[in-house]
Protein backbone atom coordinates (compact mmCIF):
# COMPACT_ATOMS: atom_id res chain seq x y z
CA UNK A 1 0.00 0.00 0.00
CA UNK A 2 2.76 2.43 1.00
CA UNK A 3 4.78 1.50 -2.06
CA UNK A 4 1.87 2.11 -4.38
CA UNK A 5 1.51 5.60 -2.85
CA UNK A 6 5.22 6.34 -3.25
CA UNK A 7 5.59 5.04 -6.78
CA UNK A 8 2.24 4.46 -8.51
CA UNK A 9 0.22 7.32 -7.04
CA UNK A 10 2.90 9.95 -7.52
CA UNK A 11 3.71 8.72 -11.05
CA UNK A 12 0.13 9.11 -12.26
CA UNK A 13 -0.33 12.39 -10.37
CA UNK A 14 2.85 13.84 -11.83
CA UNK A 15 1.99 12.82 -15.37
CA UNK A 16 -1.73 13.55 -15.17
CA UNK A 17 -1.54 16.18 -17.93
CA UNK A 18 0.13 13.80 -20.37
CA UNK A 19 -2.33 10.99 -19.56
CA UNK A 20 -5.19 13.39 -20.04
CA UNK A 21 -3.84 14.41 -23.45
CA UNK A 22 -3.29 10.80 -24.54
CA UNK A 23 -6.74 9.85 -23.26
CA UNK A 24 -8.21 12.73 -25.23
CA UNK A 25 -6.51 11.61 -28.45
CA UNK A 26 -7.61 8.03 -27.93
CA UNK A 27 -11.15 8.51 -26.70
CA UNK A 28 -12.13 12.18 -27.02
CA UNK A 29 -11.68 13.07 -30.66
CA UNK A 30 -14.07 10.53 -32.17
CA UNK A 31 -17.84 10.26 -31.59
CA UNK A 32 -18.88 7.56 -29.10
CA UNK A 33 -20.58 5.37 -31.72
CA UNK A 34 -17.37 5.26 -33.79
CA UNK A 35 -14.99 4.65 -30.90
CA UNK A 36 -14.84 0.85 -31.32
CA UNK A 37 -14.32 0.95 -35.09
CA UNK A 38 -11.71 3.71 -34.66
CA UNK A 39 -9.62 1.57 -32.30
CA UNK A 40 -10.17 -1.58 -34.35
CA UNK A 41 -8.85 0.22 -37.43
CA UNK A 42 -5.93 1.61 -35.45
CA UNK A 43 -4.98 -1.79 -34.00
CA UNK A 44 -5.45 -3.58 -37.33
CA UNK A 45 -3.28 -0.85 -38.88
CA UNK A 46 -0.26 -1.63 -36.72
CA UNK A 47 -0.74 -5.39 -36.35
CA UNK A 48 -0.96 -5.74 -40.12
CA UNK A 49 1.95 -3.48 -41.05
CA UNK A 50 5.55 -4.08 -39.92
CA UNK A 51 6.66 -0.41 -40.16
CA UNK A 52 3.67 0.80 -38.19
CA UNK A 53 4.16 -1.96 -35.61
CA UNK A 54 7.81 -0.92 -35.14
CA UNK A 55 6.65 2.64 -34.53
CA UNK A 56 4.13 1.49 -31.91
CA UNK A 57 6.75 -0.71 -30.20
CA UNK A 58 9.08 2.29 -30.12
CA UNK A 59 6.35 4.32 -28.44
CA UNK A 60 5.85 1.63 -25.79
CA UNK A 61 9.61 1.41 -25.25
CA UNK A 62 9.76 5.17 -24.67
CA UNK A 63 6.92 4.94 -22.17
CA UNK A 64 8.67 2.02 -20.45
CA UNK A 65 11.87 4.10 -20.21
CA UNK A 66 9.83 6.88 -18.63
CA UNK A 67 8.53 4.44 -15.98
CA UNK A 68 12.04 3.13 -15.27
CA UNK A 69 13.53 6.63 -14.99
CA UNK A 70 10.75 7.67 -12.63
CA UNK A 71 11.43 4.74 -10.29
CA UNK A 72 15.20 5.35 -10.41
CA UNK A 73 14.69 9.06 -9.74
CA UNK A 74 12.45 8.28 -6.78
CA UNK A 75 15.07 5.88 -5.40
CA UNK A 76 17.79 8.52 -5.84
CA UNK A 77 15.87 11.25 -4.00
CA UNK A 78 17.23 12.22 -0.58
CA UNK A 79 13.88 11.66 1.10
CA UNK A 80 13.75 8.10 -0.24
CA UNK A 81 16.82 6.87 1.65
CA UNK A 82 14.62 4.72 3.89
CA UNK A 83 13.64 2.64 0.85
CA UNK A 84 17.14 1.13 0.79
CA UNK A 85 16.62 -0.12 4.33
CA UNK A 86 13.22 -1.60 3.49
CA UNK A 87 13.19 -2.72 -0.14
CA UNK A 88 16.90 -3.46 0.05
CA UNK A 89 16.48 -6.25 2.59
CA UNK A 90 13.97 -8.21 0.51
CA UNK A 91 15.25 -11.46 -0.95
CA UNK A 92 14.29 -14.04 -3.56
CA UNK A 93 10.73 -14.37 -4.73
CA UNK A 94 9.46 -11.56 -2.46
CA UNK A 95 11.99 -9.10 -3.90
CA UNK A 96 11.19 -9.86 -7.53
CA UNK A 97 7.42 -9.88 -7.00
CA UNK A 98 7.62 -6.49 -5.24
CA UNK A 99 9.58 -4.91 -8.09
CA UNK A 100 7.27 -6.58 -10.59
CA UNK A 101 4.16 -5.16 -8.89
CA UNK A 102 5.61 -1.65 -8.82
CA UNK A 103 6.73 -1.69 -12.44
CA UNK A 104 3.56 -3.44 -13.64
CA UNK A 105 1.37 -0.75 -12.04
CA UNK A 106 3.23 2.00 -13.90
CA UNK A 107 3.38 0.21 -17.24
CA UNK A 108 -0.25 -0.97 -17.07
CA UNK A 109 -1.74 1.47 -19.67
CA UNK A 110 0.59 0.15 -22.40
CA UNK A 111 -0.07 -3.46 -21.35
CA UNK A 112 -3.84 -2.98 -21.48
CA UNK A 113 -3.74 -1.63 -25.01
CA UNK A 114 -1.28 -4.28 -26.17
CA UNK A 115 -3.51 -7.03 -24.66
CA UNK A 116 -6.40 -5.77 -26.78
CA UNK A 117 -4.10 -5.64 -29.80
CA UNK A 118 -2.95 -9.25 -29.21
CA UNK A 119 -6.57 -10.50 -29.07
CA UNK A 120 -7.50 -8.72 -32.32
CA UNK A 121 -4.32 -9.82 -34.09
CA UNK A 122 -4.95 -13.44 -32.96
CA UNK A 123 -8.46 -13.22 -34.32
CA UNK A 124 -7.15 -11.81 -37.62
CA UNK A 125 -4.52 -14.60 -37.80
CA UNK A 126 -1.62 -12.13 -37.60
CA UNK A 127 0.43 -14.60 -35.57
CA UNK A 128 3.72 -12.79 -36.27
CA UNK A 129 2.38 -9.60 -34.69
CA UNK A 130 1.00 -11.57 -31.71
CA UNK A 131 4.36 -13.24 -31.02
CA UNK A 132 6.25 -9.97 -31.48
CA UNK A 133 4.01 -8.00 -29.11
CA UNK A 134 3.97 -10.73 -26.44
CA UNK A 135 7.75 -11.18 -26.47
CA UNK A 136 8.32 -7.43 -26.55
CA UNK A 137 6.06 -6.78 -23.57
CA UNK A 138 7.66 -9.65 -21.62
CA UNK A 139 11.01 -7.97 -22.15
CA UNK A 140 9.57 -4.62 -21.13
CA UNK A 141 8.28 -6.20 -17.93
CA UNK A 142 11.34 -8.26 -16.98
CA UNK A 143 14.38 -6.17 -17.97
CA UNK A 144 13.61 -3.16 -15.71
CA UNK A 145 13.47 -5.45 -12.64
CA UNK A 146 17.22 -6.10 -12.96
CA UNK A 147 17.86 -2.36 -13.26
CA UNK A 148 15.97 -1.72 -10.00
CA UNK A 149 17.74 -4.58 -8.26
CA UNK A 150 21.12 -3.19 -9.29
CA UNK A 151 20.17 0.28 -8.10
CA UNK A 152 18.97 -0.87 -4.68
CA UNK A 153 22.15 -2.93 -4.19
CA UNK A 154 24.34 0.10 -5.01
CA UNK A 155 22.94 3.06 -3.10
CA UNK A 156 24.53 6.44 -3.76
CA UNK A 157 26.09 5.44 -7.07
CA UNK A 158 25.68 7.76 -10.00
CA UNK A 159 23.68 6.32 -12.85
CA UNK A 160 25.13 5.56 -16.25
CA UNK A 161 23.20 8.53 -17.67
CA UNK A 162 24.67 10.93 -15.09
CA UNK A 163 28.19 9.57 -15.65
CA UNK A 164 27.72 9.92 -19.39
CA UNK A 165 26.46 13.48 -18.88
CA UNK A 166 29.47 14.34 -16.70
CA UNK A 167 31.83 13.01 -19.38
CA UNK A 168 30.07 15.14 -21.99
CA UNK A 169 30.33 18.16 -19.67
CA UNK A 170 34.09 17.73 -19.64
CA UNK A 171 34.31 17.43 -23.42
CA UNK A 172 31.92 20.17 -24.56
CA UNK A 173 31.16 23.70 -23.49
CA UNK A 174 27.57 24.69 -24.05
CA UNK A 175 27.27 27.65 -26.44
CA UNK A 176 25.32 30.73 -25.33
CA UNK A 177 22.86 30.52 -28.23
CA UNK A 178 21.79 27.01 -27.13
CA UNK A 179 21.02 27.86 -23.48
CA UNK A 180 17.27 28.15 -24.02
CA UNK A 181 17.17 24.81 -25.86
CA UNK A 182 18.95 23.20 -22.89
CA UNK A 183 16.51 24.92 -20.55
CA UNK A 184 13.55 23.52 -22.50
CA UNK A 185 15.04 20.03 -22.51
CA UNK A 186 15.78 20.19 -18.78
CA UNK A 187 12.90 22.13 -17.29
CA UNK A 188 10.35 22.55 -20.06
CA UNK A 189 10.42 19.17 -21.75
CA UNK A 190 6.68 18.65 -21.33
CA UNK A 191 5.69 21.88 -23.11
CA UNK A 192 8.42 21.31 -25.70
CA UNK A 193 7.26 17.80 -26.59
CA UNK A 194 3.58 18.75 -26.59
CA UNK A 195 4.40 21.64 -28.96
CA UNK A 196 6.41 19.35 -31.22
CA UNK A 197 3.60 16.76 -31.22
CA UNK A 198 1.03 19.39 -32.15
CA UNK A 199 3.22 20.88 -34.90
CA UNK A 200 3.84 17.40 -36.31
CA UNK A 201 0.09 16.87 -36.57
CA UNK A 202 -0.36 20.30 -38.18
CA UNK A 203 2.24 19.50 -40.85
CA UNK A 204 0.62 16.11 -41.57
CA UNK A 205 -2.84 17.69 -41.71
CA UNK A 206 -1.69 20.55 -43.95
CA UNK A 207 -0.05 18.20 -46.43
CA UNK A 208 -2.99 15.78 -46.37
CA UNK A 209 -5.63 18.50 -46.81
CA UNK A 210 -3.79 20.21 -49.64
CA UNK A 211 -5.41 19.45 -52.94
CA UNK A 212 -3.01 18.45 -55.70
CA UNK A 213 -1.05 20.03 -57.28
CA UNK A 214 1.30 21.37 -54.59
CA UNK A 215 0.45 24.92 -53.54
CA UNK A 216 3.16 26.92 -51.74
CA UNK A 217 0.72 29.36 -50.18
CA UNK A 218 -1.27 26.51 -48.62
CA UNK A 219 1.90 25.10 -47.06
CA UNK A 220 2.86 28.55 -45.73
CA UNK A 221 -0.54 28.98 -44.09
CA UNK A 222 0.01 25.60 -42.39
CA UNK A 223 3.44 26.84 -41.36
CA UNK A 224 1.87 29.89 -39.70
CA UNK A 225 -0.15 27.50 -37.53
CA UNK A 226 3.07 25.64 -36.68
CA UNK A 227 4.61 28.94 -35.57
CA UNK A 228 1.50 29.86 -33.63
CA UNK A 229 1.99 26.67 -31.60
CA UNK A 230 5.40 28.05 -30.51
CA UNK A 231 4.10 31.33 -29.04
CA UNK A 232 4.20 30.12 -25.43
CA UNK A 233 7.75 28.81 -25.84
CA UNK A 234 8.80 32.24 -27.16
CA UNK A 235 7.05 34.00 -24.28
CA UNK A 236 8.78 31.73 -21.77
CA UNK A 237 12.11 32.56 -23.41
CA UNK A 238 11.88 36.09 -22.00
CA UNK A 239 11.19 34.73 -18.53
CA UNK A 240 14.24 32.47 -18.80
CA UNK A 241 16.44 35.38 -19.90
CA UNK A 242 15.11 37.63 -17.13
CA UNK A 243 15.32 35.19 -14.27
CA UNK A 244 18.26 32.94 -15.05
CA UNK A 245 20.37 34.71 -17.63
CA UNK A 246 20.45 38.25 -16.25
CA UNK A 247 24.25 38.05 -16.20
CA UNK A 248 24.43 37.93 -20.00
CA UNK A 249 23.92 41.70 -20.31
CA UNK A 250 27.33 42.31 -18.76
CA UNK A 251 29.11 40.34 -21.49
CA UNK A 252 30.82 42.56 -24.08
CA UNK A 253 28.94 41.15 -27.05
CA UNK A 254 27.96 43.34 -30.00
CA UNK A 255 24.26 43.57 -30.74
CA UNK A 256 24.54 41.78 -34.08
CA UNK A 257 26.10 38.79 -32.32
CA UNK A 258 23.37 38.64 -29.69
CA UNK A 259 20.81 38.86 -32.51
CA UNK A 260 22.56 36.09 -34.44
CA UNK A 261 22.48 33.92 -31.30
CA UNK A 262 18.70 34.35 -31.13
CA UNK A 263 18.36 33.45 -34.82
CA UNK A 264 20.47 30.34 -34.40
CA UNK A 265 18.63 29.28 -31.24
CA UNK A 266 15.25 29.46 -32.96
CA UNK A 267 16.60 27.70 -36.04
CA UNK A 268 17.64 24.74 -33.87
CA UNK A 269 14.35 24.88 -31.96
CA UNK A 270 12.48 24.56 -35.26
CA UNK A 271 14.85 21.98 -36.76
CA UNK A 272 12.48 19.00 -36.16
CA UNK A 273 9.75 20.81 -38.13
CA UNK A 274 12.17 21.70 -40.95
CA UNK A 275 13.33 18.08 -41.23
CA UNK A 276 9.74 16.84 -41.17
CA UNK A 277 8.79 19.39 -43.84
CA UNK A 278 11.64 18.25 -46.08
CA UNK A 279 10.62 14.61 -45.62
CA UNK A 280 6.99 15.39 -46.49
CA UNK A 281 7.54 17.85 -49.33
CA UNK A 282 10.92 17.16 -50.96
CA UNK A 283 9.27 15.70 -54.04
CA UNK A 284 7.26 18.83 -54.75
CA UNK A 285 8.96 21.72 -52.93
CA UNK A 286 12.33 22.83 -54.29
CA UNK A 287 15.33 24.15 -52.33
CA UNK A 288 14.10 27.75 -52.59
CA UNK A 289 10.76 26.78 -51.04
CA UNK A 290 12.57 24.95 -48.24
CA UNK A 291 14.73 28.04 -47.68
CA UNK A 292 11.56 30.12 -47.52
CA UNK A 293 10.04 27.80 -44.87
CA UNK A 294 13.17 28.20 -42.74
CA UNK A 295 13.59 31.97 -43.24
CA UNK A 296 9.96 32.77 -42.60
CA UNK A 297 9.71 30.57 -39.51
CA UNK A 298 12.88 31.82 -37.85
CA UNK A 299 12.10 35.46 -38.72
CA UNK A 300 8.61 35.25 -37.25
CA UNK A 301 9.74 33.68 -33.96
CA UNK A 302 12.61 36.15 -33.62
CA UNK A 303 10.24 39.06 -34.26
CA UNK A 304 7.89 37.79 -31.52
CA UNK A 305 10.84 37.47 -29.13
CA UNK A 306 11.93 41.04 -29.91
CA UNK A 307 8.41 42.35 -29.25
CA UNK A 308 8.91 41.19 -25.67
CA UNK A 309 11.62 43.84 -25.20
CA UNK A 310 8.88 46.48 -25.11
CA UNK A 311 7.99 47.55 -21.58
CA UNK A 312 4.71 46.40 -20.10
CA UNK A 313 4.11 43.69 -22.65
CA UNK A 314 2.27 41.11 -20.59
CA UNK A 315 0.93 37.80 -21.88
CA UNK A 316 -2.39 39.27 -23.12
CA UNK A 317 -0.79 42.11 -25.05
CA UNK A 318 1.84 39.75 -26.43
CA UNK A 319 -0.76 37.34 -27.80
CA UNK A 320 -2.65 40.25 -29.31
CA UNK A 321 0.46 41.36 -31.21
CA UNK A 322 1.17 37.77 -32.23
CA UNK A 323 -2.29 37.48 -33.76
CA UNK A 324 -1.93 40.83 -35.53
CA UNK A 325 1.39 39.71 -37.03
CA UNK A 326 -0.18 36.39 -38.11
CA UNK A 327 -3.01 38.21 -39.89
CA UNK A 328 -0.55 40.57 -41.65
CA UNK A 329 1.62 37.60 -42.63
CA UNK A 330 -1.42 35.71 -43.92
CA UNK A 331 -2.42 38.56 -46.24
CA UNK A 332 1.15 38.96 -47.49
CA UNK A 333 1.34 35.21 -48.19
CA UNK A 334 -1.95 35.29 -50.06
CA UNK A 335 -0.55 38.23 -52.05
CA UNK A 336 2.59 36.22 -53.00
CA UNK A 337 4.80 38.64 -51.01
CA UNK A 338 6.72 35.88 -49.18
CA UNK A 339 10.23 37.29 -49.35
CA UNK A 340 9.04 40.83 -48.61
CA UNK A 341 7.47 39.37 -45.49
CA UNK A 342 10.75 37.73 -44.45
CA UNK A 343 12.75 40.93 -45.05
CA UNK A 344 10.11 43.02 -43.28
CA UNK A 345 10.15 40.74 -40.23
CA UNK A 346 13.95 40.78 -40.07
CA UNK A 347 14.20 44.57 -40.38
CA UNK A 348 11.50 45.07 -37.78
CA UNK A 349 13.01 42.54 -35.36
CA UNK A 350 16.54 43.91 -35.57
CA UNK A 351 15.32 47.52 -35.27
CA UNK A 352 13.33 46.71 -32.13
CA UNK A 353 16.29 44.77 -30.71
CA UNK A 354 18.86 47.50 -31.35
CA UNK A 355 16.60 50.19 -29.91
CA UNK A 356 15.34 48.27 -26.91
CA UNK A 357 18.01 45.80 -25.72
CA UNK A 358 19.99 48.09 -23.41
CA UNK A 359 16.84 49.92 -22.30
CA UNK A 360 14.98 46.77 -21.35
CA UNK A 361 14.24 45.99 -17.72
CA UNK A 362 12.43 42.83 -16.57
CA UNK A 363 8.88 43.38 -15.30
CA UNK A 364 8.95 43.85 -11.52
CA UNK A 365 6.28 41.22 -11.03
CA UNK A 366 8.53 38.69 -12.74
CA UNK A 367 11.76 39.28 -10.82
CA UNK A 368 10.25 39.72 -7.36
Amino acid at each position, binding site marked *: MALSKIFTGSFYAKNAAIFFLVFYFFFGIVPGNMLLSYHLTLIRGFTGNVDFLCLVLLGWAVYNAKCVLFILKTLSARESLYLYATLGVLEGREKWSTWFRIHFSLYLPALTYSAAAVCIAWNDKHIGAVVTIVLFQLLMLILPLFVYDRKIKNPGTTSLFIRWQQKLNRLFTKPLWAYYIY*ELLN*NGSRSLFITKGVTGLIIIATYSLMEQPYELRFMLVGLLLVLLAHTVLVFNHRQFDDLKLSMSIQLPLPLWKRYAHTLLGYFVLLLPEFIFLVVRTYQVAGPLDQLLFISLSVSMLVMWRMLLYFPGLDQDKYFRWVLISIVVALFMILGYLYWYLVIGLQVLAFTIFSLRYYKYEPPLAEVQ
Partner: protein
Amino acid sequence: MPAPVLCLKNVIKAYEDHVVLNIPELQLDYGTYWLLGENGAGKTTSMKVMAALIPSQGEISVENVQAKQQPVQFRRLVNYAEAEPVYPGFLTGKDLLGLYLKTKGKGYRDLDQIIHLLGIHEFIHRPVSGYSSGMLKKLSLVLAFTGMPKVILLDEPLITLDVQTVPLINKLVEEFHTQFGVTFIISSHQPVSGSSIRLQVQDKNIVAAHGVI
Protein backbone atom coordinates in the same frame (compact mmCIF):
# COMPACT_ATOMS: atom_id res chain seq x y z
CA MET B 1 46.04 65.13 -11.04
CA PRO B 2 45.00 61.77 -12.63
CA ALA B 3 41.67 61.56 -14.49
CA PRO B 4 38.85 59.86 -12.58
CA VAL B 5 38.24 56.20 -13.41
CA LEU B 6 34.46 56.15 -13.00
CA CYS B 7 32.21 59.16 -13.69
CA LEU B 8 28.49 59.49 -13.13
CA LYS B 9 26.67 62.65 -14.17
CA ASN B 10 23.02 63.47 -13.61
CA VAL B 11 22.21 59.82 -13.10
CA ILE B 12 18.61 59.12 -12.15
CA LYS B 13 17.13 55.70 -11.67
CA ALA B 14 13.37 55.48 -11.29
CA TYR B 15 10.80 52.72 -11.27
CA GLU B 16 7.78 54.22 -12.97
CA ASP B 17 7.46 57.58 -11.13
CA HIS B 18 9.38 56.54 -8.03
CA VAL B 19 12.97 57.81 -8.03
CA VAL B 20 15.26 55.40 -6.19
CA LEU B 21 18.60 56.94 -7.12
CA ASN B 22 19.55 60.52 -7.95
CA ILE B 23 23.27 61.16 -8.37
CA PRO B 24 24.03 64.67 -9.74
CA GLU B 25 27.76 63.98 -9.96
CA LEU B 26 30.17 61.31 -8.79
CA GLN B 27 33.80 60.95 -9.81
CA LEU B 28 35.83 58.10 -8.44
CA ASP B 29 39.61 58.00 -8.78
CA TYR B 30 41.69 54.85 -8.79
CA GLY B 31 41.14 53.15 -5.44
CA THR B 32 39.21 50.58 -3.46
CA TYR B 33 35.84 51.82 -2.33
CA TRP B 34 33.65 50.39 0.36
CA LEU B 35 29.99 51.12 -0.35
CA LEU B 36 27.93 51.43 2.80
CA GLY B 37 24.23 51.85 3.35
CA GLU B 38 21.35 50.49 5.32
CA ASN B 39 19.35 47.55 4.06
CA GLY B 40 17.21 48.78 1.17
CA ALA B 41 19.22 52.00 0.78
CA GLY B 42 19.96 51.14 -2.83
CA LYS B 43 23.48 49.66 -2.78
CA THR B 44 22.72 46.89 -5.28
CA THR B 45 20.79 49.27 -7.56
CA SER B 46 23.71 51.73 -7.40
CA MET B 47 26.16 49.03 -8.40
CA LYS B 48 23.98 47.79 -11.24
CA VAL B 49 23.57 51.36 -12.49
CA MET B 50 27.34 51.93 -12.30
CA ALA B 51 27.89 48.74 -14.32
CA ALA B 52 25.15 49.85 -16.78
CA LEU B 53 23.28 46.60 -16.20
CA ILE B 54 19.97 48.35 -15.71
CA PRO B 55 18.79 51.36 -17.70
CA SER B 56 18.99 54.82 -16.13
CA GLN B 57 19.05 58.45 -17.16
CA GLY B 58 22.32 60.39 -17.26
CA GLU B 59 25.90 59.64 -18.21
CA ILE B 60 28.10 56.84 -16.94
CA SER B 61 31.66 56.41 -18.13
CA VAL B 62 34.80 54.49 -17.26
CA GLU B 63 38.04 56.04 -18.47
CA ASN B 64 36.04 58.21 -20.86
CA VAL B 65 34.27 55.21 -22.40
CA GLN B 66 30.57 56.03 -22.29
CA ALA B 67 28.18 53.26 -21.22
CA LYS B 68 25.43 54.33 -23.62
CA GLN B 69 27.48 55.24 -26.67
CA GLN B 70 30.03 52.40 -26.43
CA PRO B 71 28.23 49.60 -24.56
CA VAL B 72 30.52 46.79 -25.75
CA GLN B 73 33.78 48.59 -24.87
CA PHE B 74 32.26 49.70 -21.56
CA ARG B 75 31.47 46.10 -20.66
CA ARG B 76 35.08 45.14 -21.26
CA LEU B 77 36.12 47.69 -18.63
CA VAL B 78 33.57 46.86 -15.94
CA ASN B 79 32.90 43.55 -14.20
CA TYR B 80 30.19 42.89 -11.67
CA ALA B 81 29.56 40.04 -9.24
CA GLU B 82 26.06 39.70 -7.85
CA ALA B 83 25.28 39.26 -4.16
CA GLU B 84 23.15 36.22 -4.87
CA PRO B 85 24.20 34.90 -8.26
CA VAL B 86 21.68 32.95 -10.34
CA TYR B 87 22.62 30.86 -13.36
CA PRO B 88 20.73 28.27 -15.41
CA GLY B 89 20.96 25.03 -13.44
CA PHE B 90 22.11 22.88 -16.36
CA LEU B 91 25.29 24.92 -16.89
CA THR B 92 28.52 23.73 -15.31
CA GLY B 93 31.14 25.98 -13.79
CA LYS B 94 33.27 25.19 -16.82
CA ASP B 95 30.51 26.35 -19.20
CA LEU B 96 30.23 29.69 -17.42
CA LEU B 97 33.95 30.17 -17.20
CA GLY B 98 34.27 29.32 -20.90
CA LEU B 99 31.59 31.89 -21.75
CA TYR B 100 33.27 34.65 -19.74
CA LEU B 101 36.75 33.85 -21.04
CA LYS B 102 35.48 33.83 -24.61
CA THR B 103 33.71 37.17 -24.32
CA LYS B 104 35.75 39.08 -21.73
CA GLY B 105 39.15 37.57 -22.46
CA LYS B 106 41.73 35.71 -20.38
CA GLY B 107 42.62 38.44 -17.96
CA TYR B 108 45.47 39.74 -15.86
CA ARG B 109 46.22 36.49 -14.06
CA ASP B 110 46.09 32.80 -14.89
CA LEU B 111 42.54 31.89 -13.85
CA ASP B 112 43.46 28.24 -13.31
CA GLN B 113 45.54 29.34 -10.33
CA ILE B 114 42.60 31.25 -8.83
CA ILE B 115 40.29 28.29 -9.50
CA HIS B 116 42.64 25.95 -7.65
CA LEU B 117 43.22 28.48 -4.89
CA LEU B 118 39.48 28.68 -4.18
CA GLY B 119 38.94 24.93 -4.63
CA ILE B 120 36.56 25.41 -7.57
CA HIS B 121 38.34 22.77 -9.68
CA GLU B 122 36.71 20.07 -7.53
CA PHE B 123 33.20 20.86 -8.76
CA ILE B 124 33.78 22.81 -11.97
CA HIS B 125 32.42 20.01 -14.21
CA ARG B 126 29.18 19.63 -12.25
CA PRO B 127 25.96 21.48 -13.15
CA VAL B 128 25.48 24.55 -10.94
CA SER B 129 22.05 23.23 -9.86
CA GLY B 130 24.00 20.99 -7.47
CA TYR B 131 26.15 23.79 -6.01
CA SER B 132 25.77 25.13 -2.50
CA SER B 133 25.37 28.91 -2.14
CA GLY B 134 29.04 29.17 -1.14
CA MET B 135 30.22 27.26 -4.21
CA LEU B 136 28.06 29.46 -6.42
CA LYS B 137 29.47 32.56 -4.77
CA LYS B 138 33.06 31.44 -5.35
CA LEU B 139 32.30 30.79 -9.01
CA SER B 140 30.65 34.20 -9.49
CA LEU B 141 33.68 35.89 -7.89
CA VAL B 142 36.09 34.11 -10.21
CA LEU B 143 33.97 35.23 -13.18
CA ALA B 144 34.35 38.83 -11.98
CA PHE B 145 38.13 38.48 -12.30
CA THR B 146 38.02 37.50 -16.00
CA GLY B 147 39.07 39.91 -18.76
CA MET B 148 41.00 43.12 -18.21
CA PRO B 149 38.55 45.37 -16.40
CA LYS B 150 39.39 48.76 -14.94
CA VAL B 151 36.53 48.58 -12.45
CA ILE B 152 35.23 45.53 -10.58
CA LEU B 153 32.03 45.84 -8.58
CA LEU B 154 31.51 43.19 -5.93
CA ASP B 155 28.11 43.09 -4.26
CA GLU B 156 28.39 41.48 -0.83
CA PRO B 157 31.33 39.29 -1.90
CA LEU B 158 31.88 37.67 1.48
CA ILE B 159 28.41 36.37 2.32
CA THR B 160 28.04 32.57 2.33
CA LEU B 161 31.81 32.10 1.95
CA ASP B 162 33.65 29.83 4.39
CA VAL B 163 36.24 31.34 6.75
CA GLN B 164 39.17 29.95 4.76
CA THR B 165 38.04 31.69 1.56
CA VAL B 166 37.46 35.19 2.98
CA PRO B 167 41.20 36.06 3.35
CA LEU B 168 41.86 34.63 -0.13
CA ILE B 169 39.29 37.00 -1.64
CA ASN B 170 40.77 39.93 0.30
CA LYS B 171 44.20 39.01 -1.04
CA LEU B 172 42.90 38.79 -4.62
CA VAL B 173 41.29 42.21 -4.35
CA GLU B 174 44.53 43.67 -2.97
CA GLU B 175 46.60 42.03 -5.71
CA PHE B 176 44.34 43.12 -8.58
CA HIS B 177 44.24 46.63 -7.16
CA THR B 178 47.95 47.15 -6.59
CA GLN B 179 49.45 45.06 -9.39
CA PHE B 180 46.93 45.50 -12.17
CA GLY B 181 45.47 48.91 -11.36
CA VAL B 182 41.88 47.76 -10.90
CA THR B 183 39.45 50.00 -9.03
CA PHE B 184 37.12 48.09 -6.72
CA ILE B 185 33.71 49.10 -5.46
CA ILE B 186 32.58 46.68 -2.82
CA SER B 187 29.38 46.58 -0.84
CA SER B 188 29.94 44.57 2.29
CA HIS B 189 29.14 44.46 5.96
CA GLN B 190 32.74 43.49 6.61
CA PRO B 191 35.78 45.58 5.57
CA VAL B 192 37.50 44.05 2.56
CA SER B 193 40.66 46.11 2.17
CA GLY B 194 42.66 47.90 4.83
CA SER B 195 42.91 51.07 2.75
CA SER B 196 39.39 51.27 1.35
CA ILE B 197 37.59 54.57 0.97
CA ARG B 198 34.11 54.70 2.40
CA LEU B 199 31.13 55.70 0.30
CA GLN B 200 27.61 55.94 1.58
CA VAL B 201 24.29 55.52 -0.20
CA GLN B 202 22.31 58.27 1.45
CA ASP B 203 19.12 60.07 0.42
CA LYS B 204 19.23 58.34 -3.00
CA ASN B 205 22.71 59.73 -3.64
CA ILE B 206 26.21 58.33 -3.21
CA VAL B 207 28.35 60.50 -0.98
CA ALA B 208 31.73 60.18 0.70
CA ALA B 209 31.43 58.81 4.19
CA HIS B 210 33.68 60.30 6.86
CA GLY B 211 36.90 58.61 7.71
CA VAL B 212 39.28 56.28 5.95
CA ILE B 213 39.69 52.81 7.37
